[in-house]
C-alpha cells in the first residue's frame, strides 16, 4: 500500500499493542462471573454500545467486498445496500433487540439461543438455534480472516504468506478476547471502529485528490464506462431480486448472534435508542467511500482478475505511505472487530447452549470452558480460511441468506405471545429447506431470490405451527 515492510510492521506492532492493552485492562473484571465475561455485566452505555455494534456489523464485507462489487457493478451497489440497511437495522433493533434485552435479563440468559430456549420452554429450540447460528457464523468468520490474510500478504509483498497472516489475525483476536471477554471486545471495537472510519474518510479525500479531484475522478469513470454511474437492470438490480436482497440485507443483521448478544449487553433501552439515531449517519460515511473506491478503481485498473484486489490496488496507487499502513490496519480492524465478537459469542454458545443443557457445569469454571471453546472455534476458522476458495462477497452472501431463515423465529418469539416452540421449529425447518432447495434451483422462483421464499416459508410455518400446537411458555 505504498508503505515499506518496516512501516507496516511498526503499524502492526502499535495496533497489537493497543488491543492487547485494552484486553488486559478488561481482564480484572472479566473472570468475576460468566455474566461479566460474556455480557460485560450488561453495562454498555450508548457510545461504547454503538461502536461495539457498528464495529461488529461492519467487516471486510464493506471494506473489501463492497469496493470489489462496485468495481464490477458500479454505483448501484450503494443504493442496493446502504439505504435499506440504514433503516432496517435500527428498526430491527427496536423490534427484536429491545424485547430480547429485557427477556434475557428476566431469564438470566447469556446467549440468544439460551434466551429463546428458556422463553419458549424448549431445549430443542435452543439446540437447533445453536446449530444454525454456528452453521452460518463460521463461513462469515472465514471471509473475514481470508480478507485480512489477503490484504496482509499483498501489503507485505508476500513477506507474510496468507496462511501466516490468517494465523496471526486469529491468534491476536483470540488472545485479547480470552483476556477480557465482552468488555475487552467492546473497547477494542471503539478503537478499531475509529481506525477504519478515519481511514475511509481520509482515503476518500486523498484518493479523489490524487485522481485530480472529485469531478475529474468521476468524469474518468463516465468516459471509461458510463454504465458504472447508473443502476443496472439485471442480476441483483432486477426489481424482484432488488426487493429480495433488500429484505436480506435489512433484516439479517439482527440475526447475527454476535450482534444480538451485544444488544443483550446494553445498559438499558435508552442506550439502544441512541444507537438507532447514530446508525444511518455512520453507515453513510462508511459506504460512500467504499463504493466510490470501487468505481474509481474500475476506471484506474480495468480488467482485474479478482475484483477483491481493488481496495489494495487503489490504496497502494493513490495514498501516501503513512496512510497506506493505516489502510492495512483499517481492514485488520474491521475484520477483528467482528471476529472477536464471533469468537466470544460462539464460545459462549457452545458452553451455554450445547454443553450446559446436557450436563450441569460448575459456575466458576464456565469462563475457562468458554475460553477453551473459543480457541477450538478459532482453530476451525483458521483451517477453513486457508482452504476455502470463494470471493469475500460470495461467502458473505451465503451466510446472510442463511441467517435470514431465523428471522421469523427471532421476531415472533419476542413479539407474538401465541408463538410456540413447535412454531419455532417448523419455521426454522421450513425456511432452511426452502433456502437450500432454492439454491439448488429446485423450484421456479419468479424472479425473487431464494431467501425471499425462505422468509415467506419461515413466517408461514411459524404461524401455522404455533396455531396448531399447544401454548406453553417458561423454563425448559
Amino acid at each position, binding site marked *: 500500500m505504498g508503505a515499506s515492510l518496516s512501516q507496516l510492521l511498526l503499524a502492526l506492532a502499535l495496533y497489537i499493542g493497543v488491543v492487547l492493552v485494552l484486553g488486559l485492562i478488561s481482564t480484572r473484571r472479566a473472570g468475576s462471573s460468566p455474566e461479566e465475561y460474556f455480557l460485560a455485566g450488561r453495562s454498555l452505555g450508548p457510545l461504547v454500545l454503538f461502536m461495539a455494534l457498528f464495529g461488529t456489523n461492519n467487516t471486510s464485507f464493506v471494506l473489501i467486498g463492497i469496493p470489489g462489487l462496485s468495481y464490477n457493478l458500479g*454505483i*448501484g451497489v*450503494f*443504493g442496493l445496500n*446502504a*439505504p*435499506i440497511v*440504514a*433503516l432496517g437495522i*435500527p*428498526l430491527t433493533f*427496536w423490534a427484536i433487540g429491545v424485547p430480547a434485552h*429485557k427477556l434475557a435479563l428476566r431469564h438470566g440468559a447469556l446467549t440468544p439461543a439460551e434466551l429463546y430456549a428458556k422463553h419458549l420452554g424448549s431445549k430443542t429450540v435452543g439446540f437447533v438455534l445453536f446449530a444454525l447460528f454456528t452453521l452460518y457464523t463460521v463461513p462469515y468468520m472465514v471471509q473475514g480472516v481470508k480478507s485480512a490474510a489477503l490484504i496482509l500478504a499483498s501489503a507485505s509483498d508476500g513477506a507474510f504468506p496468507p496462511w501466516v497472516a490468517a494465523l496471526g489475525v486469529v491468534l491476536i483476536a483470540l488472545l485479547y478476547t480470552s483476556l477480557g471477554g465482552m468488555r475487552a471486545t467492546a473497547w477494542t471495537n471503539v478503537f478499531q471502529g475509529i481506525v477504519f472510519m478515519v481511514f475511509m474518510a481520509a482515503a476518500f479525500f486523498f484518493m479523489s485528490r490524487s485522481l485530480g*479531484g*472529485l*469531478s475529474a*475522478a*468521476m*468524469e474518468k469513470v*463516465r468516459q471509461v464506462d*458510463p*454504465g458504472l*454511474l*447508473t*443502476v443496472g437492470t439485471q442480476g441483483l438490480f432486477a*426489481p424482484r431480486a*432488488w*426487493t429480495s436482497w*433488500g429484505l436480506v440485507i435489512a433484516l439479517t443483521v439482527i440475526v447475527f448472534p454476535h450482534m444480538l448478544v451485544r444488544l443483550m449487553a446494553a445498559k*438499558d*433501552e*435508552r442506550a439502544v*435508542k441512541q444507537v*438507532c*439515531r447514530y*446508525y*444511518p*449517519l455512520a*453507515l*453513510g460515511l462508511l459506504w*460512500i467511500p467504499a*463504493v466510490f473506491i470501487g468505481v474509481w478503481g474500475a476506471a484506474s485498473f480495468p480488467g482485474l482478475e479478482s475484483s477483491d484486489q481493488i481496495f489494495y490496488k487503489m490504496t497502494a496507487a493513490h495514498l501516501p505511505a503513512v496512510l497506506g499502513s493505516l489502510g492495512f490496519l483499517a481492514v485488520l480492524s474491521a475484520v477483528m472487530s467482528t471476529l472477536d465478537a464471533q469468537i466470544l459469542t460462539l464460545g459462549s454458545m457452545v458452553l451455554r447452549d450445547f454443553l450446559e443443557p446436557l450436563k450441569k457445569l460448575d459456575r466458576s469454571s464456565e469462563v475457562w470452558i468458554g475460553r477453551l471453546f473459543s480457541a477450538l472455534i478459532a482453530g476451525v476458522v483458521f483451517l477453513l480460511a486457508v482452504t476455502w476458495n470463494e470471493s469475500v462477497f460470495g461467502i458473505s452472501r451465503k451466510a446472510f441468506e442463511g441467517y435470514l431463515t431465523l428471522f421469523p423465529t427471532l421476531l415472533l418469539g419476542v413479539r407474538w405471545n401465541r408463538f410456540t416452540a413447535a412454531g419455532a421449529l417448523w419455521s426454522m425447518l421450513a425456511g432452511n429447506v426452502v433456502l437450500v432447495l432454492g439454491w439448488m434451483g429446485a423450484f421456479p422462483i419468479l424472479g425473487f431470490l431464494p431467501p425471499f421464499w425462505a422468509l415467506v416459508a419461515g413466517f408461514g410455518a411459524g404461524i401455522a405451527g404455533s396455531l396448531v400446537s399447544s401454548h406453553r411458555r417458561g423454563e425448559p
Partner: protein
Amino acid sequence: MKPKWIAWISLIVLIALHLDFWRPQRAVLYFGWLPEDVAYRLGWMFLAWLFLLFFTRYVWKEED
C-alpha cells in the same frame, strides 16, 4: 393523527420510494461528481434518519 400512524404511513412511503423502478437511469453527475442515483439514495437516507428521529422520540416508549 397519532404518532404511531404517522410513523407507519411514513415507513410505507419510504419503502415505496426505495423500490423506485419507475425512475429513469441517467449517467448524470450533480455538482460535477455526485451520480444522480447516489444523490437520490442520500436524500432517501436523510428522510430515513428523520423518520428514525421521529420514531425514537414519539413512537418508541421506553419501559426500563
